[in-house]
């Protein structure tokens, strides 16, 4: 009977699972993160694997040896998509990579196993890059900057470096309300805080500059060239909730 391997939804957990699968020669039917709510396949036997930093580090090293650090980062990005079944895609790539049939296998982004991962990784990175501009801080009490985001993919950790450098001397919090955790930065130190169900109230904290920003946003558009379709393509409606300049705007134009 094949196994449904369960792990704690982190990338380290996934890599540990891969390690154990190799060590114990497991017959894997699916790899299932704990957050998954989809019904279990009744023909699979659940099998839990605990996360181990050391095992994850060994798999990391192996990936770098067989391919490159770049490929490791790409796998990580694809993993952050949280798409159902992404673990098996990565696993089948790793199986082929570790089998060592083709020494250049890791360099081919267009191979059958790599291509879906490559595309997924690209779209995660695209969202992470776009999100850098879409975080809106509100100034809270004691001058703390507070922002709430709801990205489609789990990109918060990919943004840490950018904001720690840019706002090095500020105290700020970026909270992912969809996943219930945030990044808190104070005095040059950044840490992950888990606050399930927390309300930042970032959209209710208003001051003069929020109003001025709205005013600026309204007057910068050229009326003769209005283009709602283009606007929605560039700035999808799912982000509007957390943007003060668009939050109150009606969803107009084409659906």
């Amino acid at each position, binding site marked *: 009977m094949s196994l449904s391997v369960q792990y704690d939804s982190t990338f380290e957990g996934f890599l540990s699972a891969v390690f154990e699968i190799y060590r114990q020669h497991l017959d894997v039917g699916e790899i299932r993160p704990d957050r998954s709510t989809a019904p279990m396949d009744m023909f699979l036997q659940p099998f839990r694997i605990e996360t181990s930093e050391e095992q994850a580090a060994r798999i990391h090293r192996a990936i770098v040896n067989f391919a490159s650090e770049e490929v490791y980062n790409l796998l990580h990005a694809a993993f952050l998509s949280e798409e159902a079944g992404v673990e098996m895609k990565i696993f089948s790539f790793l199986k082929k990579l570790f089998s060592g049939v083709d020494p250049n296998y890791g360099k*081919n982004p267009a191979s059958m196993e790599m291509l879906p991962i490559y595309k997924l990784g690209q779209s995660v990175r695209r969202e992470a890059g776009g999100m850098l501009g879409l975080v809106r*801080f509100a*100034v809270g009490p004691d001058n703390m900057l507070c922002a709430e985001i709801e990205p489609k993919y789990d990109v918060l950790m990919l943004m840490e470096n950018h904001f720690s450098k840019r*706002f090095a001397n500020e105290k700020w919090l970026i909270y992912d309300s969809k996943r219930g955790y945030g990044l808190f930065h104070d005095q040059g130190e950044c840490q992950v805080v888990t606050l399930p169900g927390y309300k930042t109230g970032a959209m209710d904290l208003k001051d003069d500059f929020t109003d*001025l920003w709205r005013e600026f946003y309204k007057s*910068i558009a050229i009326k*003769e060239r209005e283009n709602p379709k283009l*606007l929605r393509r560039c700035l999808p409606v799912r982000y509007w909730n957390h943007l003060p300049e668009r939050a109150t705007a009606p969803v107009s134009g084409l659906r």
Partner: protein
Amino acid sequence: MDVREKLRILSAAAKYDVSCSSSGSSRCAPTGGLGDACSAGICHTWAADGRCVSLLKVLLSNACKYDCAYCVNRRSNDVPRATFTPRELIQLTIEFYRRNYIEGLFLSSAVIRDPDYTMELLVKIARELRTVHRFGGYIHLKAIPGASARLLYEAGLYADRSSVNIEIPSDRSLQYLAPEKNFASVYAPMNFFAERKLEYKASVSRYTPSFLPAGQSTQMIVGASGESDYQILSLSSGFYNQQKLKRVYYSGYVPINADKRLPVLTTKPSLVREHRLYQADWLMRFYKFRYDEILDEAHPNLDLELDPKIAWALRHPELFPVDIQHADYEMILRIPGIGVKSAQLIVSGRRFTKLRLEHLKKMGVVLKRAKYFIFHPDTPASLRRLYPEMVRPLLLPRPKSGQLDLFANTPLALPA
């Protein structure tokens, strides 16, 4: 007048400037300061017209002493006038930046007393932002034609990018529409920056301060005067090759002023032509096309129905179809419908396998246009030679089929 009112007037006055990019410069946050510059550039929002907003784009003042026909701020227009104080503008920039609304400041101005006076004010604001407030974000400063070399030089030290707008693509039309301006006065600051940048590049040391790290850009209005696309592209190509400009922006003319020298007020902005010009511009910047390949004396204007790459390909049937397995990267880039990313994927993927159509589909290469121009093992016999007159109708946008009107008077074309 309060800041809100000023911001409304002065950002509305600046909106016809197209440039809003924040790319090309990479700077670490200054110690104890705020902000850095990201070399890829970051868009922070998109305005209702679909244009990206990444900088706080405002004029310092719209009280202009010039009288250019195409400009909303010209002396003879009756519009509310406003001027920011440096303090207001600096506070706005920093507070917007802290809230991550913007990537930096885009500061332009109408000519207030004389060019030097205006430029001095612009430079002063940039200097204060950089030195007093230790601001590390992006600054785009307009260079005012006619300003002295000393001020331009100082602007280059504080700003990431500078721009002088050429506005009208030929000297004769420019002097006709803007009596106070001519090509020479626009080229002077551009050349000055280009030369200083070369000097700075030559002396590479850790201690050399950066001079306009994101280079220069310019903008021209399309459709306000009678220049052909060929003239426009040859001008842009000169800017890219000689002045080493990073970007040339094209702005379809939006009629603002009633003036007998300009198209009538009811003219719709020529957005399709503007779009085609940008496509041609991209071909020059990223696809290694020369301007005289895209257009020539015989074809002085871009085809509004087809993009310039297809138009070029249909004029050169002898080069197609291109064998994707063996052709150079440069040639693959020239296949209509294939962009830089697809071309790179093809070139790196074909080393490992013989590429067939299904591989291309999986890679996400868009075959809608490319399929007529590529050669692969599964190419049907009918497509092994390119017949432009046969392919062209297939590439044209299909007319939308709507429901027929029962009471329309137009006779139905029935099949014989």
